[in-house]
């Protein structure tokens, strides 16, 4: 039995529960991520302008280990749906995997309902854009080009094909935030996206857009675990240096 893994998950679960239950006196303060500040502004501007918001959730199945990135994308989509539910043009979400596309529809509908605008929800605003990475990108590019999109978000697990979407957004003069769990995609988005996010910043998108207790707690747990891992790496290096391991 992998006791270390079970212990780490158990510790994270207890910490998350504790932070969820504790009511903080002051709002949490995080480091500034300029990309997410710009995203927040772009979302507000889009609602005012009556232009469309575009969210791509990637091409990974939730049955794979990379499903976490897709779940982070869905959490962001929920925030976007709540913000833009009363906009003239509803936000569009695309996915390169069927179950993810269905969850995108469900999430959009939930966002509309929570804002009391359930009747404005259109089922075609959650779309399957293709079944393979490149066909998915090719299916999503016309949305950026033809549907009056002013801001796009690529949040999920993409491959290098994400650069094609970033290029399409650039040609339309649309704001584009790129966040992927895949390393090669992060490199491609660093070069091509207007605002790229690196590594775990992907999981902070919804918390920065609309800080709620659960997302704040989640970020705090990540910080604690990160420091513990840093400490473990340093201790391991020292022990190795002095020949104890």
């Amino acid at each position, binding site marked *: *039995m*992998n006791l270390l*893994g*079970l212990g*780490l*998950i158990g510790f*994270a*679960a207890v910490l998350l529960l504790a932070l969820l239950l504790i009511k903080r006196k002051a709002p949490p303060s995080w480091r500034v991520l300029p990309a997410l500040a710009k995203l927040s502004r772009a979302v507000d501007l889009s609602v005012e302008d009556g232009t469309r918001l575009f969210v791509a959730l990637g091409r990974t*199945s939730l*049955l794979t*280990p*990379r*499903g*976490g*990135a897709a*779940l*982070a994308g869905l*959490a962001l989509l*929920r925030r976007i749906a709540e913000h833009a539910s009363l906009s003239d043009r509803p936000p569009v979400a695309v996915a390169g995997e*069927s*179950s993810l*596309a*269905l969850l995108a529809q*469900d999430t959009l*509908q*939930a966002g509309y309902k929570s804002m009391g605008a359930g009747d404005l929800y259109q089922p*075609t605003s959650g*779309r*399957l854009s293709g*079944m*393979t990475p490149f*066909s998915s*990108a*090719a299916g999503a590019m*016309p949305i950026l080009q*033809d549907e009056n999109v002013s801001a796009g978000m690529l949040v999920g697990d993409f491959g*290098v*094909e994400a*650069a*094609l979407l*970033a*290029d399409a957004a*650039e040609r339309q003069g649309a704001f584009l935030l790129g966040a992927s*769990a895949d390393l090669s995609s*992060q490199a*491609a988005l660093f*070069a*091509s996206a*207007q605002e790229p996010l*690196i*590594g*775990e910043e992907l*999981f902070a998108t919804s918390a920065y857009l609309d800080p709620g207790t*659960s*997302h704040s707690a*989640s970020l705090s*747990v*990540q910080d604690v675990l*990160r420091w513990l*891992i840093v400490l473990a790496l340093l201790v391991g290096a020292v022990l190795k240096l002095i020949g104890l391991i």
Partner: protein
Amino acid sequence: MRYLAVAIAVVTGVIVLLGYFLPALAGVQGTLLNWAIILAGVAALVGVFNLISVHWDKVRRREKGSVYSALLLITLVATFFFGIALHLGPDDPNMRLLVTAVIVPAEATLMALLAVTLLYASIRLLRRRTDVMSIVFLMTAVLMLAASVTLSFGGISPLNDIVRPWIQQVLALGGARGILIGVALGTLTTGLRILFGVDRPYGGS
């Protein structure tokens, strides 16, 4: 009904998670994962109907690019007809031809286009974000290209033998591990939020 969906999701998630650590739950975990795979297969079918619905809407409204939507619908129906109605399986040479003669060349074209797109994006990068990280990114890309290139007289030896392995195995590997640890922690906390029922990307609530 909403609470029932949450309860089923949470209990299923906990069992699947514990199945990785407790051998006694491995059988139940396997069964649940098999059910999930079947559901994902059904979702693929529903996804195809979503694709049809979106593109049919485009054709009906005569939106920009509706010709391509019509083409997609026609080819989809034709493939379905040849695949199902004529009992041609996925291993049938005619069905395989669809993949090798249409999908593979189309995706290869997009891959080639991507190379040009990335080159162009790299050139635009300095205009968009002139900072230290952009300069380091571009210099590293150029250095790695120069080190990897095969010239008529062979590679550029010091770059190929010393610089490239050092960048790949020290800088890039170290950075990649750091990023992956961050992604893993993010995945862990996101998964826990779903397990606790705090985030519910299902059930329309």
